[in-house]
């Protein structure tokens, strides 16, 4: 089966197997989606490696346990096994650190006609960012 993994703005289709309440995700798909790869040193992306103390709880039959993976990455995970969908959130520390730089996080969003607008295109002007809703 395939699992939809939501990671910020990206959605990935990842090979997965259900084992009871656990979800084993395909290691190659995880690497393609998130960049993390299981190596001798641990779970690695580029030159960064996270040590894996309990390899048995993470790996089985070439698959990675999704919850163990999220826990190792210290990222919040919302998972619905029945619906075969999951969302990886951002670490609180990462968001706090990004906001502490005072750099306004950049984003690209559509207007009603579907035209995309990017915040950083307005560099050089003062921007009043107004978030609102109908509700």
């Amino acid at each position: 089966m395939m699992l939809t993994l939501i990671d910020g703005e990206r959605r990935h289709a990842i090979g997965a197997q259900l084992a009871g309440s656990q979800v084993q995700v395909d290691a190659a798909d995880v690497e393609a989606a998130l960049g993390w790869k299981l190596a001798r040193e641990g779970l690695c992306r580029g030159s960064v490696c996270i040590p894996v103390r309990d390899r048995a709880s993470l790996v089985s039959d070439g698959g990675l346990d999704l919850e163990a993976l999220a826990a190792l990455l210290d990222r919040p995970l919302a998972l619905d096994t029945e619906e075969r969908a999951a969302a990886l959130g951002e670490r609180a520390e990462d968001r706090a650190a990004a906001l502490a730089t005072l750099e306004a996080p950049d984003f690209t969003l559509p207007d009603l006609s579907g035209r995309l607008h990017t915040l950083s295109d307005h560099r050089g002007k003062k921007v009043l960012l107004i978030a609102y809703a109908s509700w």
Partner: protein
Amino acid sequence: MYEELGHDGFVPITVALDRAEDARPFIERANATHPSLVDSDHRVAELYHISNVPTMIWIDERGRICRPHDAQFGTDTFASFTGKLSAPYLDLLRAWVRDGSGAMSGDEVRRHSPAPTRETQLARAERALAWHLHQAGRGEAAERHFRRAGELAPLDWTIRRGSLPLLGENPFGPAFFELAKQGRTEYAMESVTPTRAPAQS
């Protein structure tokens, strides 16, 4: 306001945390010339750690936040409910656009910025999953995750109240007033600029 302050050095950008069809009447009525964007994914809420609307953030010419989000209103439509008046804030905004006054120091901005926690971040992940399921037509599953998100972040109105239209509930009906009773601690978000309306006599 945009017309008054000029287009040269200033631009307002509105972001609706809504489905496009819910935002459309507001945007069409405003008939604005500035960017009027739709953020159904709540991307801006995640990035700026916004938990209620309306809120306004000042971003200077270098792309740095110089006044953090501040629950403010452009009009006095809801003043009797929120206790906030728009005029003092709009005066402050005019002064900033004119001469840069009113911008906060980095330390002040950080002091007034609420911190994300494990719970708020998990709530946002649950909300992202719920929104995905809602779009996929999986209403019951979506509802489970919208509710879970609300339990994790009970004071986050972008999640709790913002989910009501998606759950088929009226955001101005009983479910909202129940929410308002539980979560009305300082409007869930700190007000940086004191703009309290005088007590009603």
